[in-house]
């Protein structure tokens, strides 16, 4: 029995990339999107509530790997020890920045922890890129193919953050104007806010994020192209090339749409699809050392987990519904 827990693990990783991509990517783009103290505060307040509910997906995935797939864990640690250590350091730095930034009202304090958020987010995204690249390359992340994959994944994180920012960085003053619009229109909020006139200036960060989606999608597309070329030239194909090709085609199509055709308008959905590809392609195209889980362990985890799954779903849905509005200007993280 390894199919069900392997699918569960894949689901946790996809959930992590799609959801945590929002707050990690927003942290990466902090210096670019938020130029004034008020904008930076709004950006942190937009990322900070999310990360409490998104990083738990990764913690759950680490738990599943450690408890149900020890052979996979041993292989990951052996191949990627330096990358995982960097990932952990980046994670720590980013989270410390989010927790501490709003605790003291002093510009130097804010700058310090904003720098920690940005640096930590880049390290986190880059380390995920190296993990994905290394796994697709069959072990070491030090190859042209793996490095190109890493750049592509890093750009996908930034793209996800930009798409999220286009929606969340709209100032609350503009909120009543957006109410009649369809709630799913990602870029709609900023368009309406821009037309509203009064909020034009303060919606600048959201507009910048909307514009950045196109640039970042192009960057990710280019890096993906380089990775494909490197795979062809060096022959560094993943274990199951057909699955990898299919995933690359999906990624290419989605990114092309974001880069040219639809732009920021649908980027909330296209960026989510795009960033779901890296964990899916690793799961589908790489022959990871996934061994059958012994029945006793599976039963223990299954029986403990099953009763709380509805509560996990309820908590996540409730949290995102509460946060599906422009970031507040006051509160614990603002």
């Amino acid at each position, binding site marked *: 029995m390894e199919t069900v827990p392997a699918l569960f693990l894949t689901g946790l990783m996809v959930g992590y990339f799609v959801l945590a991509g929002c707050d990690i990517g927003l942290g990466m783009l902090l210096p670019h999107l938020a130029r004034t103290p008020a904008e930076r505060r709004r950006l942190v307040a937009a990322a900070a*509530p999310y990360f*409490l509910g998104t990083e738990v997906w990764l913690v759950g995935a680490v*738990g599943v790997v450690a408890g149900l797939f020890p052979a996979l864990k041993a292989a990951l640690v052996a191949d990627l*020890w330096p990358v995982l250590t960097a990932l952990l350091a980046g994670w720590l*730095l980013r989270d410390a920045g989010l927790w501490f930034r709003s605790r003291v009202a002093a510009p130097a304090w804010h700058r310090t922890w904003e720098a920690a958020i940005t640096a930590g987010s880049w390290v986190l995204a880059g380390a995920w890129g190296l993990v994905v690249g290394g796994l697709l390359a069959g072990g070491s992340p030090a190859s042209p193919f793996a490095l190109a994959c890493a750049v592509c994944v890093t750009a996908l994180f930034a793209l996800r953050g930009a798409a999220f920012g286009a929606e969340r960085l709209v100032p609350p003053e503009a909120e009543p104007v957006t109410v009649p619009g369809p709630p799913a229109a990602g870029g709609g909020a900023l368009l309406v806010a821009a037309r509203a006139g009064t909020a034009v200036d303060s919606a600048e960060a959201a507009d910048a994020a909307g514009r950045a989606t196109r640039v970042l999608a192009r960057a990710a597309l280019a890096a993906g192209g380089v990775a494909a070329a490197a795979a062809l030239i060096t022959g560094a194909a993943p274990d199951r090339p057909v699955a990898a090709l299919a995933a690359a085609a999906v990624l290419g199509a989605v990114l092309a749409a974001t880069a040219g055709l639809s732009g920021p308008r649908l980027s909330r959905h296209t960026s989510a699809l795009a960033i779901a590809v890296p964990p899916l392609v690793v799961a589908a195209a790489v022959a990871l050392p996934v061994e059958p889980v012994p029945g006793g*362990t599976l039963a223990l985890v299954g029986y403990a987990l099953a009763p709380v799954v509805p509560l996990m779903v309820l*908590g996540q849905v409730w949290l995102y519904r*509460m946060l599906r509005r422009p970031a507040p200007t006051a509160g614990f993280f603002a």
Partner: protein
Amino acid sequence: MFDDPLLLARLQFSFTAATHYLFVAFTLGLAPFILFGQLGAVLRRDPARLRAVRFWGGLYVVNYGMGVLSGLVMELQLAVNWSGLSEAFGYAFGAPLAVETMVAFFLESTFLGLWIFGWDRMNRWAHLACFAVVAATAYASAYWVLVANGFLRSPVGFEMRGGTAVVTDATALLANPAAVLAFAHVVAGTLMVGAVVVAAVSAYHLARGADPDRMFIRALRASGLVLALALMPTAATGGLQFGAAADAPPTSGLTLTAAEIAAVEDAYDGGAAAAIGAAGEMVMVLSWTLMSLLALALLLAWVPKAPGPLRWALWPVVLTPVLPYAASVGGWVYRETERQPWAVVHHLTTADAMTDLGPVAAGVSFSLFTAAFAVLAGTTWWLLVRYARRGPDGGPLAPAPPPESDARPPAVPVA
């Protein structure tokens, strides 16, 4: 000394675990105060009591942040630096940790997010229910982690098949006395941590003559009662573990023969670790004794009209949180050094449990995370003391200022 990767990895883990536990202990100990405080406020529809919940809740959230950060580092460090544990015992030792990440932490963090952002935005019963989930999952988290820790100390409920431990008796694993007794000890001990910190913060404000809405005398009385009630259970659940530690685990001999086990234990000379462990035990017992005196003193707060003119007598109470924290670290140092030279008693030595790291890699990892921890833990404590001294008007969960104002609420010293 610092070119020995094993020593570095052990020191790194002990620093991480000790730091993590300091924050976890306060989380566990404070959660019931907040839960029952909020329940009382909701039942009475009392805004004054709700202000007190905001104050203690602010401390809870700041403290929780560092608990999570250190917990993440601990989980990843276990995976990265101690891979020998998962090679043979991953399915048995890792399973309760896997359950902990999803059944406890996943829910705890999500619902704490809801609780933080639900202030002024949520139905009061729904808001209370969010914290009830947070408190329940905090304790569930402690239980599952102690199932994993208890397994190291007294490995039960598995068979060795092809060099891998396979869980055959989940009930034995979950009801392992080494886990259940430790959980009871942690529940009682962390209540003492929470009670003493609540008492110290309340004493600080009462000694200065500040008691808005009578929130601090209420907290002082409650904490004295909780401390007095938790004293004996802490000692009893701790004392019961002394006897259990001496026995060989029921699975002894499944991995190594009796002769091999004897050879490992004969070659181990205790050394510094044994001395440090003995010191930990002494600190724990001494702190408990002093806290039993403190409990008696705090019960005087139930005298009507206390503290009255004797409020200056509360100043020494402000310094007492050092006692439960010292006892907590001392107790853990004692428990974990006592197990040496084993990582899994009679199955796997600590040396064999470690990932094959070179001295450079171990040194980099050690310096990086120890330095980061010193900064983060120091910052968190500084913030906690700062918020505790500010009182209910300056806390991080205090009601928001008007939306137009760009300024943070001012740091109002409590008059």
